[in-house]
């Protein structure tokens, strides 16, 4: 029961999005892809999707750069005010998005940053950066620093040590952090409602106005699409894990064969 309850959105939206009817009855009587076609043929949907994509990519880049630096600082550094710093770094996840949206709107209105890519990217970076920090910091904690020291003792400079030794070892957690950051931005609607306007609107805000006005089957299609992306990234994540695992076992087996060990 609870499993069904948890999966309700997926179970409902996907069949609905393929409904042939204009009224979104459940269960749908006939199936078609007409709402998906309508979606693709509507330039306003495409436009807000592109806005969202641009904002999400830029915020992800900013959040990853800031977050990786911060994670290194957190894990390796000695610094004062530990408690206050942790609170500051986690605050964007804790403070309700309505408050963030309102506060930022008050300031951005004065500075002319509403309805600008820069405005959206600044807010979304702030909201996403904690996820990158936590993911990367947990990756760094489990990474053996001896490898770095070894590289440096062999004459590698700090920057090349980072890119050739440290980064490859924490790449998985950086990737996970980046994925979190991307989804945070791509999906964020509450503060985007404040910052959006006729000049510039992200996809979630466009969906939001579609849902608010009427129960529009195009929204079912875009929701279905979003779910496919989520399920797809799940499968991709799972597939990557499987691939990594099989490469590792393959290597182990080969290594075992060459040195004649049993494992």
């Amino acid at each position, binding site marked *: 029961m609870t499993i069904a309850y948890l999966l*309700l*959105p*997926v179970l*409902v939206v996907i069949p609905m999005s393929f409904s042939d009817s204009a009224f979104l009855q459940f269960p749908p009587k006939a199936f078609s892809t007409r709402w998906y076609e309508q979606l693709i043929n509507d330039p306003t949907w495409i436009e807000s999707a592109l806005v969202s994509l641009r904002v999400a990519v830029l915020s992800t880049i900013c959040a990853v750069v800031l977050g990786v630096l911060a994670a290194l600082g957190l894990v*390796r550094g000695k610094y004062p005010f530990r408690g206050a710093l942790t609170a500051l770094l986690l*605050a964007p996840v804790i403070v309700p998005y*309505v*408050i963030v949206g309102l506060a930022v709107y008050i300031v951005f209105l004065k500075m002319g940053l509403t309805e600008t890519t820069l405005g959206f990217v600044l807010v979304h970076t702030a909201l996403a950066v904690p996820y990158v920090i936590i993911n990367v910091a947990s990756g760094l904690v489990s990474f053996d620093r001896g490898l770095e020291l070894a590289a440096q003792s062999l004459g590698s400079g700090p920057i090349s040590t980072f890119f050739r030794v440290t980064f490859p070892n924490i790449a998985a957690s950086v990737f996970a952090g980046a994925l979190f950051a991307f989804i945070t931005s791509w999906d964020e*609607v509450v503060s985007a409602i404040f910052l959006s306007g006729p000049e510039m609107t992200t996809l979630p805000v466009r969906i939001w106005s579609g849902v608010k006005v009427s129960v529009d089957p195009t929204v079912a299609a875009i929701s279905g699409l979003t779910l496919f992306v989520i399920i797809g990234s799940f499968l991709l994540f799972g597939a990557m894990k499987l691939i990594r695992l099989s490469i590792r076992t393959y290597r182990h087996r080969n290594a075992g064969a060459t040195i004649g060990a049993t494992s």
Partner: protein
Amino acid sequence: MSHVLEAPVEVTAPKLPKSAKPPWRSRFETNGWSLLLLPVVVFLLVVFIAPLIMMFSKSFTDPTVGLDNYRAIWENSLYLKVLKNTFVVAIGTTVLTLLIAFPYAYLMTLATPFWRAVMIIAVLVPFWTSLLVRSFALVLVLRDTGALNTALDSMGVIDEPLPLLRHMSGVLFGMVQITLPFAVLPLYATMRGIDRRLLQAAESLGARPSLAFAKVYVPLTMPGMFAGVILVFIQALGYYITPALLGGPQNTMIGELIVQQVSTVLRFGFAAALGVLLLVSTLVLLAIASRFVDMKKYLMGQS
């Protein structure tokens, strides 16, 4: 973690002048790595903290200097009703979520690996799915002609559609669906670490299974339960999208009121005062919670 060890030194020697104590100096000691924190700190102070401070000051200065905005909340029964409604929905959501999440997480610890994987995926898919999409789906479920009413009708349970959408029952149904993962994950994390042999031990000493469960197992799940309750409650307080879609004018919550005040009547100062109220309640709750459990672990411990 040397800073942990420093604390008792201060307590035992309180009368020394501060600068004379080695712990004082080592607390402010820093190394090159910590400079890497600077960009994030500056960024968050400018983009995040400064706007919050601006909002705070605006609540006391816009349109007039003083406590007018707060007085307006206090003196209008409509706004008080919104505050009351916000807390009622948040408490109701928290209680229902916990009631469903506890047995679910418990079953996860007992399930076979295959079913455990299914149950985890069932929690993670909504966790990763857009809040907006989930709320929209819930509209489709809860409408008079929606999935739930159609299903109940065809089973012959009801004659006419249950009033769900635009009612408290619909809001609670939706909010619990949204917050469930946030309670299941910490509960499961705690339960996984509990040694079930403790139950056998209690039973071998003569406790009935139900008593052993209530007196031995349940208290051990407290940290997870507490983390779940706080996470769910804080989120429920601040949600905007879900209650705005599922609720009616009778159950407006504070988040909706804030957006309304800004977007339709442009009362920035009043909206800011509501924001301050919500922010303060959230921070107070967190401060209380952090005395009992390591919130950092649960806020970030997804997966």
